């Protein structure tokens, strides 16, 4: 997430904007010392990242190059057999596809649903603003597991919706809203919405009521004000929210596992299966590396998009 955060924090700093005044640095003599002092401040964080992220990823990469013996034993070697196994199997292509579709679906739905809320929360002058923002992210106080069970109670075959529909005679047999991609997506969207709301609120910094008023005074109708001013200025926030929900959705495990009932095949659940059921750690590691590459690709795309917005 660190990549998303840092990029989002500097939407105003358009690269190539040479006319911007140089940052106020202390005199020349102090310059190198200050820089070293600043770098020194990064060391604790860097050590944490090294121990908790980089080393495990390297270990996982090493594991993905091992082989899964015929008897299920781990064979220490250097081979790309696991990658070949994944990439030559249409099932795994389907899994990657499912993962991307679910990630996009969740991100799109969460952004569309969160946008009006975030816009309202940023603009409201109510004295309850702080409380309202806290309420919007309050669902995070409940664990994702508990909320997933809540969705099973709502969407299940004997769940709230189906019971009502059956009792009213609207449907003969229960609607399949659980144990499939639909249920997983609905639950994930609800679970991830607080994140997209937060990301958007912090990404709407360039929005200023005077800008919308200025557009209005220059003859822009409410619709034009939205498309010409509000939307362009909130795009960075929208992208941040989208990326955040996307990466959280494609890495989510609990909700797709519970809502999918074993019938939703995405990378996270397959990695879990390979690692704990089949005990094929090299394959699980290879899948995890592929997931990591997907992450990286989308963060790259996101940065390009944000750069383009800033440059117009």
């Amino acid at each position: 997430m660190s990549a998303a955060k840092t990029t989002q924090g500097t939407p105003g700093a358009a690269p190539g904007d040479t006319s911007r005044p140089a940052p106020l640095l202390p005199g020349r003599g102090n310059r190198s010392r200050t820089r070293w002092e600043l770098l020194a401040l990064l060391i604790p964080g860097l050590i944490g990242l090294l121990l908790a992220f980089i080393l495990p990823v390297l270990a996982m990469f090493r594991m993905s190059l091992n082989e899964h013996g015929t008897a299920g034993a781990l064979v220490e070697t250097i081979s790309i057999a696991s990658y070949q196994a994944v990439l030559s199997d249409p099932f795994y292509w389907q899994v990657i596809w499912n993962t991307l579709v679910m990630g996009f679906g969740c991100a799109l739905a969460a952004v569309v649903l969160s946008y009006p809320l975030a816009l309202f929360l940023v603009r409201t002058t109510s004295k309850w603003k702080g409380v309202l923002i806290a309420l919007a992210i309050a669902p995070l106080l409940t664990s994702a597991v508990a909320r997933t069970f809540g969705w099973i109670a709502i969407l299940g075959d004997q769940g709230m919706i189906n019971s009502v529909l059956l009792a009213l005679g609207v449907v003969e047999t229960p609607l399949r809203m659980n144990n499939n991609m639909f249920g997983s997506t609905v639950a994930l969207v609800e679970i991830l919405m607080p994140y997209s709301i937060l990301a958007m609120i912090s990404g709407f910094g360039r929005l200023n009521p005077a800008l919308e008023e200025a557009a209005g005074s220059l003859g822009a109708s409410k619709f034009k004000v939205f498309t010409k001013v509000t939307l362009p200025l909130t795009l960075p926030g929208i992208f941040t929210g989208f990326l955040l929900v996307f990466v959280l959705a494609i890495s989510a495990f609990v909700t797709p596992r519970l809502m999918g009932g074993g019938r939703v095949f995405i990378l996270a659940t397959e990695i879990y299966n390979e690692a704990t059921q089949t005990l094929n750690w090299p394959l699980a590691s290879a899948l995890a590396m592929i997931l990591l590459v997907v992450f990286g690709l989308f963060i790259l795309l996101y940065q390009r998009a944000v750069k383009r917005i800033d440059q117009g």
Partner: protein
Amino acid sequence: MSSAQAHLELRGLNKTYPNTESPAVDSIDLNVAEGELVALLGPSGCGKTTTLRMVAGLLDPSAGEIVVNGKDLVGTPVHKRGMGMVFQSYALFPHMTVAENVGFGLQMRKLPRKEVKDRVQEALAMVQLDHLAQRRPAALSGGQQQRVALARALVVEPTLLLLDEPLSNLDAKLREAMRREIKQIQQRLGTTTLFVTHDQDEALDMADKIAIMHNGVIAQYAPPEEIFDRPATRFVATFVGKANFIEATEVVGRGGGRYRVSSDLLGTLEVEGVEGIEAAEDAALVVRPHRLGVRRRGESSAPQIGGEIVPGGPVVPGRVVDSAYTGNVRSLVVDVPDGQQIMIDELTVRDRALAIGDEVEIAFDPDDAFLVGSR
């Protein structure tokens, strides 16, 4: 660029916010003639910005009419009013270039590309920024952003130009230069202009007429000289410039705004004043500190400093208790017999300085005193 000269009239304009007792703008009337630049001047919270926002259409009035060229605009949405507004923060669109900012209003009016381009060029040339057309607002200085905002508001040939504290974010030197520039452009185009400010110098310098606002009402609406020399209320006298108040003990009307006024300090004088004052209660003489002359006691026909000492005018003895030097003016505070303190601003003269503790005599021309009533 030209401008269809517009006439603005506010009739009983009122804004009362929910859950408040007194209105923010209390049924004001204001008449702005074609081509005039009128300043709404007052302290924060006096209702001046609320008034401007109602005229712009950014705020709905609770009652009253906003009549432009004979047509009531209340209910007309902001984007159909055809006014140009410059915001305190300039409100330039950060995602557009300078040229796109200036062209925005023309695009909204669906003008052909060529015409938009030509008029943007012309407007930017008017504020001497044609060389920065492709820059982003963030790459401009405060003064340049201000000029872009002005060009953006004027390029649409607005019926009215509305300025909301446009100079308050600039430093002092630049502010004075921009005052002249805005005034010159406004006079050249002849655009009827409403200008909100809390800075009296700005209002006195730029405005054809000033409306002094206080607690949601217009305390006085007059040209700058009249506001300064003939303030309508005590508030106006204190808000614009510095003022000494000498409480009246007896007031006799002589007709035509002239009065015979008695006070403990000055005896009986014949002065001009606000029309319609009937009682001495709460009436006071306003005397500006720089219209008072002062000399050391005993210097009979002294070379007077600052104001002219008129033979036969009242002379008051006193003692200097404070003295502040600001270069061209020395501001004195003098204790006078009735326990009051009088402020005097004298132009500084080389090698002559009255010090704290000096016994002095204050004198002035009764024509420089003006009687204000209880309001």
